[in-house]
């Protein structure tokens, strides 16, 4: 009797759990559908009108017109240089900030919080906005693009670096301190060697991202291939637009493969 009572209790509990689970699933689904509805996704009229326009655009994009390819080499090279320069700057600024932002290496709690807030602020300003600001400040070209990429990335890279440093094994740090290392030596010789593969990983991902992002930054006048892309769009030369997009795609594939290979080598 008491056993069947126990079974009944367990099954009732399971049923309650099932109902909670179903309610949660329904809520998540409702939010997703609402988001699509708010953004007019269910307005079929716009799709019916839009599809022929899309087809028209697509047909104008083929065949891609690579006629001006000589004019794109330099901008593509600029974009590549921007991505590398932006990464270098981001790393140089991020590393000391990350040391300050990681609780286990930060000299004090307040500085740690202040640095974390600064990183969060930098992260929250999109690079396209930073791009517009820097174009206004230093003029058109690759330089504002590099500055925008670097500054936005410091927020991201600094946070990831700090997280890597935070999870470092404290034992070798104690060994370095015991051997008379200065606090800075503990960081350079005990913390960094432990997290180096993670830092390299984060940096290379960021470099790959920078290449794609710098193509977009060209649109606001911050140099590189994005500038050419914008020019082609303005001229409604969609066959050139598709050619430029394909060129960017080819470069992204190369950069990603290179990044993957470097990551492997630095393990």
């Amino acid at each position, binding site marked *: 009797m008491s056993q069947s009572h126990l079974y009944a209790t367990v099954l009732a509990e399971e049923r309650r759990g099932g109902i909670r689970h179903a309610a949660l699933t329904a809520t998540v689904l409702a939010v997703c559908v609402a988001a699509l509805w708010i953004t007019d996704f269910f307005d079929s009229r716009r799709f019916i009108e839009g599809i022929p326009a899309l087809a028209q655009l697509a047909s104008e994009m083929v065949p891609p017109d690579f006629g001006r390819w000589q004019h794109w080499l330099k901008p593509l090279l600029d974009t590549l240089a921007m991505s590398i320069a932006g990464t270098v700057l981001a790393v140089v600024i991020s590393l000391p900030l990350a040391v300050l932002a990681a609780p286990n290496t930060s000299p004090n709690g307040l500085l740690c919080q202040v640095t974390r807030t600064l990183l969060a602020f930098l992260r929250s300003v999109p690079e396209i906005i930073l791009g517009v600001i820097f174009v206004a400040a230093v003029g058109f070209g690759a330089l504002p693009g590099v500055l925008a990429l670097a500054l936005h990335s410091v927020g991201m890279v600094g946070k990831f670096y700090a997280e890597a440093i935070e999870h470092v094994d404290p034992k*070798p740090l*104690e*060994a370095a301190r015991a*051997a*008379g290392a*200065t606090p800075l*030596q503990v960081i350079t010789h*005990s913390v960094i*060697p432990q997290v180096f593969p993670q830092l390299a990983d984060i940096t290379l991902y960021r470099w790959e991202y920078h290449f794609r992002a710098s193509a977009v930054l060209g649109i606001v006048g911050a140099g590189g291939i994005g500038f050419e892309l914008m020019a082609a769009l303005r001229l409604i030369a969609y066959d050139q637009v598709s050619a430029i997009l394909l060129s960017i795609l080819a470069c992204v594939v190369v950069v990603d493969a290179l990044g993957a290979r470097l990551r492997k080598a630095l393990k």
Partner: protein
Amino acid sequence: MLDLDKVTVRYANRVTALDEASASFPKGQFIVLLGPSGAGKSTLLRCLNGLVRPTSGKVRSEEGGNILGSSAALRRHRQRTGMIFQQHHLIGRLTALQNVLMGRLSFHGTFRSLLPLPRADRLLALEALDRVGLADRALHRADQLSGGQQQRVGIARALAQQPHLILADEPVASLDPATADKVLALLHRICREDGITAVVSLHQVELARRYADGIYGLAGGRIVFDGPAAELDAPMLDTIYGSASTPSVQPAPLQPEQTPARLKMAKIA
């Protein structure tokens, strides 16, 4: 060469790890701290190089006086004080040689140490590895070495400091008994040859008896025994280890031909 004067350590959680402990470590002697885990051995050792700051009391060295007198004094003291840890405390992805070179860091300024250290330091490090029989493993990653080899790298790192004093915190506790005996014998021999003062915490009575010039017995943060190994009798062991039911005498080191399963059991015990 080193004196502990009424040192008390109370941690933030109000646990008293060390209670008015006084001890002295004469030059060139191999002193063992004996006691169960939690007796305050690690805390006492870490007071001797300032990794733990006493709540009250002083630690004095013959050369430099109060080791916590100034940050420069502390650094000078640590420079010639090698430390060996239970878990080796190596960086797994660096080579044995790179790990040993950590022992040379304090001899260079922070910015100088960002560049590769001079050849003289590299030779010192390699010599230290050679003395522990690992010169041929110098360029292997630390995490590819066996437990016993890793601990020998730990010893080499301490030797690279050309130390006057070596502190060893349960240096063989994470090794199987046969390896433990070999590693401790090596450490003992090197300290003898170089006239290095050693303070070694252990929980195995047998090992302490075999190697110690003098023993401090700890229980509950207090020093309850101070004398040569010969005076360590059964009643005293009961005082140190709490009760007669505690296995106060560890089994003798196992022979190498014993099965891995039994070795593993012994390691856990």
